[in-house]
């Protein structure tokens, strides 16, 4: 009986091992360094990466970072995609041009959009496996199981394109009834959101897709305030997911920033959409979100805040209790552009102090 009892528990323990590594908050400065913070936003260390950084993500096992940064190999375009091994601090060039790396949650693949399609890399050997024909410019988000790659595109038309990582093909294109759309995983479903495509102020629309059947289901309308209000300027909207809810926020600190045109309006805050009830509430009303990411347990939200009204303005990192909306911790960052990622990194690989990455490696 002991054997029956322990085998599943052992397997579950192995599966959970990665999540047991400490949560590390990564803030990547565009000026060329990546700062590491613990879950309470206590600074741990930093790694300099020489060139301008466009984006950063982490492998599921926390042993590698994928960094898009300025590169001579990008032939003048931005950027090249690199892998940074946290053990050796060596960086491997992967491809260019590329603006981001999206690792699959099972740790097997790395995806990015290149010049001719979506590139699939073997995340262990860093070799390019194939390039999938991809008729759009995508926000790429792998499915939790790693089999499917969901690509949200609004160009040339709004659609959700589902790529089969096994056969390296575009398996399904789901044209969206309205656009523009943005999307995020919440639990085992992928949600797509559109705001006011029919011209009705304050009306959002949600659709969801389960990876196992690839069918687009309408989750109905979401009641929101009039997001434009008295400010006749474009609103930037971003979406993030936790297991039971979605977070919708206006984005600040980009080239479009309504605070410049409408300085007297109270802008900011994060809307939470409870998926079981559709209930909408607003938290952290004075926070101006630049990037945000929820923890896997859905209890906390880490936010990169653009405090100034320009993209060169003050920046800070916040930890927010989702249930109460309280800001639990804040840490000020150097003024400028930053990027945010959450990772679970083995303690031995977390940099202590200021380190510097080497610029080449052999795979």
């Amino acid at each position, binding site marked *: *009986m002991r054997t*029956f*009892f322990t085998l*599943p528990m052992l*397997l579950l323990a192995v599966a959970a091992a990665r999540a047991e590594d400490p949560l590390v908050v990564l803030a990547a400065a565009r000026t060329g360094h990546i700062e590491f913070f613990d879950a309470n936003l206590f600074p741990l260390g930093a790694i300099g990466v020489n060139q301008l950084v*466009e984006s950063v993500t982490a492998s599921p096992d926390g042993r590698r970072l994928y960094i898009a940064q*300025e590169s001579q190999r*990008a*032939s*003048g*375009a*931005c950027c090249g995609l690199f892998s940074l091994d946290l053990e050796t601090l060596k960086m491997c060039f992967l491809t260019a041009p*590329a*603006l981001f790396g999206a690792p699959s949650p099972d740790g097997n693949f790395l995806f990015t*959009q*290149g010049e*001719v399609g979506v590139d699939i890399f073997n995340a262990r050997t860093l070799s390019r496996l194939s390039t999938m024909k*991809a*008729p*759009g*410019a*995508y*926000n*790429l988000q792998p499915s939790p199981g790693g089999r499917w790659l969901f690509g949200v*595109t609004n*160009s*040339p038309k*709004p659609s959700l394109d589902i790529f*089969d990582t*096994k*056969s390296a093909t*575009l*398996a*399904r*294109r*789901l*044209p969206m009834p309205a656009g*523009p*759309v*943005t999307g995020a995983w919440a639990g085992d479903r992928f949600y797509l959101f559109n*705001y*006011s495509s029919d*011209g009705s*102020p304050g009306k959002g629309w949600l659709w969801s897709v389960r990876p*196992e*059947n690839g069918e687009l289901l309408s989750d109905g309308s979401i009641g929101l305030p009039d*997001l*434009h209000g008295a*400010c*006749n300027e*474009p*609103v*930037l*909207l*971003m979406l993030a997911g936790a297991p039971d809810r979605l977070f919708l926020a206006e*984005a600040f*600190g*980009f*080239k*479009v920033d309504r605070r410049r045109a409408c300085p007297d309006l109270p802008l900011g805050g994060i809307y939470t959409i409870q998926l079981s009830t559709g209930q909408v509430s607003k938290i952290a009303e004075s926070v101006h979100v630049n990037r945000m990411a929820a923890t896997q347990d859905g209890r906390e939200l880490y936010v990169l805040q653009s405090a100034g009204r320009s993209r060169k303005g003050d920046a800070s990192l916040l930890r927010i209790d989702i249930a109460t909306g309280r800001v639990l911790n804040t840490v000020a960052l150097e003024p400028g552009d930053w990027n945010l990622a959450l990772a679970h990194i083995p303690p031995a690989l977390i940099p202590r102090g200021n380190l510097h990455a080497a610029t080449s490696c052999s795979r």
Partner: protein
Amino acid sequence: MKRLALWLLPMTLSAGQARYARVGDFDGAVQVQLQAADDWQPARRNLPLRELSWLRTEGAARVEVELDDGSVVRLGPDSLAELSDYTRLSSGQRITLISLDHGLAYFTGAAEDKDTLVVAVPGAQVTIRQGAHLRLEARDPWSLIAVTDGVARFSSPTAEFDLTAGQIVKLDPEHPARFFLNREIPPLETDRWSDERDKVLLSSTSAAHVPGLGYGLADLDAYGVWVQSGDFGAVWKPKAPAGWAPFRNGKWRWYDGLGYTWISDDPWGWLPYHYGRWMQQEGAGWIWAPGESAVFKPGEVYWLRSAKLVGWGALAPAEHWKPPDTPRLYLNANTTYASYAPESLEIDPAGFAARPREPLATAVFVQALPSPPFPAARLDAFRPPLRAGGTQAVSVSTGTAFDGSPDPRAEAQPDPAPDAAYTNEPPAAPPVVIVQAPPEEVPVEVYVPVPVYTGIIVVYPPGYKAPAPKIPPKAVSPPPPPKPKVPAPDKPVK
């Protein structure tokens, strides 16, 4: 807690396990190619088919393939089909895609809650959720999909809708916007064969004793009896002559990822050789205990091996045997022998006459036989692409309306010449022509002030007039890009 752990065990073990389908009833010249590097070989009843297996019939031949979820595919004359996707994900979800390249096929089945079950022909595919009986034809140039019972979801590059019982769609893969829907299915000569096979399989009573497995059941009804055993519950006893022993009538074939796998010549020889264990009881003879595992096994036996000879025999239920221990059921009379060469892909006991009198004097027990050599060139093997597209499912666009009447915007298409496959009276109802409605034009986004990869979208206020587009500044000045076929990723402009 222990109860929970016991409940988790079978799920844990079955998640992600490879799936195999069974070659069942067949007649005539039927051939199988298990993977691209293999030669075509004659089909055998009880041959396990793996993902990407190809199956073809010549002349008037026909064959039935049973899937582990209880679905059945039947190929009619001069046909070729592929088991394009036949996987079980780590979540336990089963994904099945069967592609008909040419010829005639029948499909009967239903998808369980989270499973995905798709059948493809050139130019279209159907997704089965609830139970459905389908007839599929892949001709030149037409593809036809008929639903003889149930409902199936039809998808082509231009339309998606439910096909219900009694409907047949005919389409030209070269012109996917044009297809024909009839409400009467012309009968074919082979329909009766498929209907009768469905009745045989559906009437099986053995399913009650083998929960979780949907294939090979009807043969247990026909070739044996179920009896209650004090030790093992319901067990199955084959109708076999005296002196018969399991794993004797058939041969082993090497499968990558599975090892030497038993292919039984016993007509019922599927479930009892790949699930559960055998037991020899006094008075009852050999009985098969199905067990509780739903994981496909190559054939659970002990092995005896010497330089040029191998022997094997059944392992008992719940026996955790390891060499050099003597297996519980080991007797020389229970052991089957064959000549052995390490490079051989098959081990066939037929005609072997040199049965050793003292096998343990020259042979030793081993857990398994080593792999035959695997030439790396096998990995370079190539097959021509299927007309049905293999694992590439077709995409679907909006704009097609189907209400059973011709689209008023559509230009009526002439009915094509009657298809040669229709041997009986032509259908009475005229075909309904459906043509894709032109999709609404959506303005192409020319300027995105935020990198698209971030997922951040720009929502303009009603009536907003955007300033004249500006070329966004770039981190590094790139040369002007050539006009790409695929929209290039956006440029960072923060």
